């Protein structure tokens, strides 16, 4: 509070009393990020029809997997790695829904382009934190895409596979929170990788590796499919909190598992944010903006 008053005082001068409030926070501390979110939402709502064009890709992907698992599961009631056929297909549908629904450019392409093209210079000198600005932008982007894909996933799943076995409607808010946390953790790690552009020419190969790891381990197949020896390692990676955890809760909700996943997500988010701020603070000193 004392700092805010000091800031406010510093603004009184040339422009007179009216400027007193500049530098003070009005309303909630995160108000400006709320406004960034609202603006992105307004911008992206104009592209709802474009987003819907991606439904075809999602449908083809899911259709292939339904046929694949139909072929693999030869006897009714068979379990593979603890999953029934319906659970396995719903798992893929949920992870793919998160993948397609959050496939926005802000955290990967934009950060990289901002740093390499020098556009970051014009975003940094605003009174917000650049990484939180990107994170908020990304949240605004998936806020439009994800519900659309969720609706599509539920429709395809209900028609082609049937309801999720043992689905608990009361657990929906927890599942939603888990999905949101998963997407946010994913974004934080993707931003961290993109911020490497401060040091290296191109962070895309690292981004590609991360994406593919997430896609193969955790998105297309649940962690339990892989050899027992590798599973503890996977549980230590972001895969566990980003895609495996939320999808696992949807197809096989258990309160103890829920607490475990949520706790891991909170820890991962805190560590990820700490890393993101650290990398940004170090990287920004390395910024080299040339020409104009």
């Amino acid at each position, binding site marked *: 509070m004392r700092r805010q008053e000091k800031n406010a005082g*510093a603004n009184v001068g*040339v422009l007179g009393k009216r400027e007193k409030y500049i530098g003070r926070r*009005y309303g909630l501390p995160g108000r400006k990020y709320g406004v960034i979110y609202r603006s992105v939402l*307004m911008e992206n709502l104009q592209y709802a029809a474009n987003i819907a064009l991606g439904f075809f890709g999602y449908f083809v992907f899911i259709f292939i997997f339904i046929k694949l698992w139909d072929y693999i599961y030869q006897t009714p009631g068979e379990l593979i790695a603890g999953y029934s056929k319906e659970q396995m297909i719903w798992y893929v549908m949920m992870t793919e829904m998160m993948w397609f629904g959050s496939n926005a450019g802000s955290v990967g392409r934009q950060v990289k382009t901002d740093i390499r093209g020098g556009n970051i*210079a014009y975003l940094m000198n605003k009174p917000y934190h650049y990484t939180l600005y990107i994170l908020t932008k990304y949240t605004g982007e998936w806020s439009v895409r994800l519900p659309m894909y969720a609706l599509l996933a539920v429709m395809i799943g209900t028609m082609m596979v049937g309801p999720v076995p043992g689905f608990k409607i009361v657990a929906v808010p927890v599942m939603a929170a888990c999905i949101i946390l998963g997407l946010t953790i994913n974004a934080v790690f993707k931003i961290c990788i993109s911020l490497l552009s401060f040091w290296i020419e191109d962070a895309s190969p690292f981004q590609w590796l991360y994406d593919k790891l997430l896609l193969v381990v955790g998105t297309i197949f649940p962690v339990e499919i892989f050899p027992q020896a590798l599973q503890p390692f996977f549980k230590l990676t972001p895969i566990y909190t980003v895609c495996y955890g939320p999808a696992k809760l949807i197809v096989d909700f258990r309160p103890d598992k829920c607490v475990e996943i949520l706790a891991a997500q909170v820890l991962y988010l805190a560590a990820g944010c700490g890393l993101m701020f650290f990398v940004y603070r170090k990287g920004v000193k390395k910024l080299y903006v040339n020409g*104009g």
Partner: protein
Amino acid sequence: MQAISVKELEKTFRVRRKEKGMRGSVQAILRPQTEEVKAVRGVSFGVDEGEMLAFIGPNGAGKSTTIKMLTGILYPDGGRVEVLGIDPAKRRRQLAYQIGTVFGQKEQLWTHLTPYDNFRFFGAIYDIPEKETERRIGELTERFELGGFINTPVRNLSLGQRIRCEIVASLLHKPKVLFLDEPTIGLDPVVKESVRSLIKQMNREFNTTIFLTSHDVGDIEKLCKRIIIVNAGQIVLDDSMEHLKYHYLHKKIVEVKMQEETTFPQVEGITILKHKGTYARLEVDTAAIEIGDALRRINAQAVEDINISNVPLENIIMEIYKAEGKDAAS
């Protein structure tokens, strides 16, 4: 009171070097080579509150790097910077509340939103209460005549309209210092003039300090009372516009149309720039020969029409770039 104070500012970049051809590309992977480029070398100056300063120089002179250090985007390697008593590198976000930036070649507005939505956005970003934001939008809309397109998405605006909106967006929080980097680039003369008069008005009414970089001599001449010229990372001239003109305007351009074709005598201080038929354009160095003498030498009685003008400011600046650039580089 000084709004900007810069002392012995330095910035060095490490730039990758690569030999030409395929061999060079392979060598660059195996043995990467870098070289140091001193973009800013010991620059010192001060800008008073309410002053309008032109900070100019040829491409690669170090002016953008200096601006970026003044706004906290780049960290200096040496020296000291204070903008409104704040060190930009240490307290960039606090400084952001008090400065505005307009980069003519970069967009800060969200192109899919209308100017109105953009202004509301910037109001919130700068922590301005909603009522106050509305009041300022109204005031600036009227002053910058944005009424006709305030609800049109930015992507559908003309360049002139967009630049006016960019300026409004950077004025919404009433900055004490406004950094303008080529604000009139690409604009037609009418819009240029209107943007200039708005900047002037803002400086007059709010005592806003203006830090301008531009390659457009019109911007410099019509807006600024003081000029700093940088070249090769160093200040080569820091003078008032009045002084600059007085010192460098010892040359006059004399355009004459003679009654009949004639030859001009070779006289010290008179340089024939163009001579075609009865028309001639001469440069008279008044330090070497008085203008009256020069006119007598070209036989004023045979002149059908005459026009005497100062050397354009553009040429003066170009000469300074060339002359001082050599000194600075050496």
